[in-house]
């Protein structure tokens, strides 16, 4: 069961990396969050803790439903091209990301000192998701991709925390959820304003603002 979930996370991350359009990216982000929700839900059933149920529920509500919905709505309202603007094309991106997978595997196995094989794989995947999120932030032009990259990193950190220490304390987890949600709203609003002012959301062109 866990192997399938991890594979799902991994696969959806690869899909995000090769996505060329913003709606696709958001859809894959939804998949990734959904697998994350499944993972948490599985642990919750196993341990029968009310906290975990709540966290899983929040995960579903915020990351699977609310954030993707909100982002989709921004895109529709902005009426800009759906193109993500790839600095590195899809094939090369995939190659890079495969390299990162190997790196994070090495990192997880040697540095983080996992207890067993299963935990090593989980660590590697979690760490890989963080790296992939960063990759998205760096190599995609639009501001929306940056927001999603940040969210992907957050997903990775969530996974990392739950693997290493069996999840963060309940209240911390809740606080993070709300932080993420609020930050997405704020950033989305900013992106909307940037678009209104400059008629594009190409972050690369913002460098012209520099004195």
């Amino acid at each position: 069961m866990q192997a399938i979930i991890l594979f799902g996370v991994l696969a959806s991350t690869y899909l995000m990396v090769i996505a060329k359009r913003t709606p696709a990216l958001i859809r894959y982000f939804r998949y990734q969050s959904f697998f994350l929700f499944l993972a948490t839900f599985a642990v919750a059933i196993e341990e029968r803790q009310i906290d975990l149920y709540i966290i899983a529920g929040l995960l579903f509500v915020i990351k699977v439903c609310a954030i993707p919905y909100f982002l989709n709505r921004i895109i529709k309202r902005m009426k800009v091209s759906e193109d993500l603007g790839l600095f590195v094309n899809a094939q090369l991106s995939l190659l890079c990301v495969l390299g990162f997978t190997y790196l994070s595997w090495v990192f997880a196995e040697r540095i983080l000192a996992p207890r067993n094989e299963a935990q090593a794989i989980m660590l590697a995947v979690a760490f890989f998701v963080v790296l992939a999120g960063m990759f998205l932030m760096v190599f995609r032009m639009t501001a929306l991709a940056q927001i999603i990259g940040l969210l992907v990193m957050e997903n990775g950190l969530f996974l990392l925390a739950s693997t290493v220490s069996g999840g963060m304390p309940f209240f911390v987890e809740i606080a993070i959820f709300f932080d993420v949600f609020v930050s997405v709203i704020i950033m989305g609003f900013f992106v909307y304003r940037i678009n209104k002012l400059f008629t594009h959301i190409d972050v690369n062109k913002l460098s012209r603002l520099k004195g």
Partner: protein
Amino acid sequence: MEHLNIDSLFLFDPLSAFFLCVIFLISLPSAVYSIGYLKGESSGLKTALAWFLLVLFLISMGLVVSVRNVFVFLIAWEIMSLVSYFLVVFDTKHEKSIQAGTIYIVMTHIGTAFLIAAFLIMFKYAHSFNFAAIKSACSLMPPQTRNIVFLFLLIGFGTKAGIVPLHIWLPYAHPQAPSHISSIMSGVMIKTAIYGIIRFVIFILGVNSSWWGVLILMLAVISCLVGVIYALMEHDIKKLLAYHSVENIGIILLGVGLAMLFISMNMPYLAVFSLIAGLYHLINHAIFKGLLFLCAGAVYKATETRDIEKLGGLIKKMPQTAVYFLLGAMAISALPPLNGFVSEWLTLQAFFLGAFSVEGGYRLFLGLCAAMLALTSGLAAACFVKAFGITFLAQPRSRYAQNAKEVSLSMRAGMFFLSFLIVVFGLAAAIIIKLLAKVASAATGINTSSMSFSLNNFILSPQAGKGVYLSTPLLAAVLATLGIAGFAIYKLVNREKAVIYKTWDCGYYKLDSRNEYTATTFSKPFRIAFSFFLLPYRKTQKIRESFYHVKSFAYETHTTMVFKKYIYEPILGLVFRSAKFMRKIQPGSIHLYLSYIFVTVLILIIFMRKF
């Protein structure tokens, strides 16, 4: 925080008391003077701000010389630097003030950085910020470390003191501050750096290699000569005085450096004597430089210009200021029987006595230093002949000088007090030396009770039984008698022959103030004599109507600022070039910034794999 225990915070040994006394003696008249000086200069709020800064400045200087904790010392030192920066830029009307302030604050912070480094090295050995603990720990320091600490302290305090080649800020910052502040900065603030050298190098670190003293002596000689030569070339009266501060810091350091040399050679008597000479010149310089800056401020207040080429004839408009300036100029030129003469005489005596007591190359070295000191005094006298003559004598050279009026009572009171001190410190030399012997003894840790520096209260005898005596009251009496006698003879013989007529002008009939001797012409011989160092150059520009008729002719002569051009400008250029290069990694692209982080993370991961 046992380091900051209030009981162990203050230290009032003779050395601190001496410096507190200097601060008090100079700031009191300057504060009185500022009442008149600030009147009409700026709004009420700004005047209040000036007073606030002045008080803060005095408190911070007082703290610097009286704390016994390195940590608090640094804080006080930094407050002093910052407040003086604000005072330099106080006159915001002039763009130059801002520029001067920037140079000043950059230089002073470079100095402070070296001080912090030195103090941290000391702390590493002592594990305490207390002076006493550091003093005992310093004797256990390895020689290499001691040398490094010494060099750092020298650079740190040297920047504040204005030792060449770290003097670069001084001629910019001192003239830009309001005059009473210039007087305190030049008279007192740069002396806190001398306090630092005496306190930290001689008292705490302890001198045991002779090259320290030699290094300070060499820097001091260079400072003397460079300061006075630049002063000779300068026509801005306050800048001229600022360059003289460089020169006089050199003379003070001659005494201090000599003391360090003699300590390392284990000659306690000469060490104490040299330090007395240095300290005496320190307080003397504080007094007469304070006075001269106040006079310069009075001239500026009355004429609104500091360019002596535009002045002239002020002795008739401002007789009292002229007398005070003349007294200050005589003192700084080391004319007997005033105070500057006594301390320079003592310094020279220290060199001679030292040269007779040491062997080999040191004898030559000390002799050369003495010769340079003599040369410096001569040049200083020439410079003040220029400064006084061009400013106060002859006819007014511009309308600035024509409309001058004597300054207000409070300003004259401040100047009078300092002039009075000049005479007192000249005539009462024998008593003051006894007091300074105690200060020097506390600073060096040498017991002076068995040493004799004086026969009685009127005659100075630096080394009892060697036949070297000086009595300033006697000198004064002789000079007064001779002067009165000469005046009487003149009056008796020449009374009938005085004829008042115009200067003979070879039949030109149109002599006016434009034909007067100027400061530039006065200093021309020196410009030629020191041309190897000053590197003078001239610019001429002719505008011709035809080949035979020149419509206008412009002639300018300048001297090259050697230190600025060959030391500071290359360094500045390097900084700017590297900054421009570093700017390339800051293109303003968010992606690039993110990728810096990303690449760093990846490199860290790969790097960790190796282990």
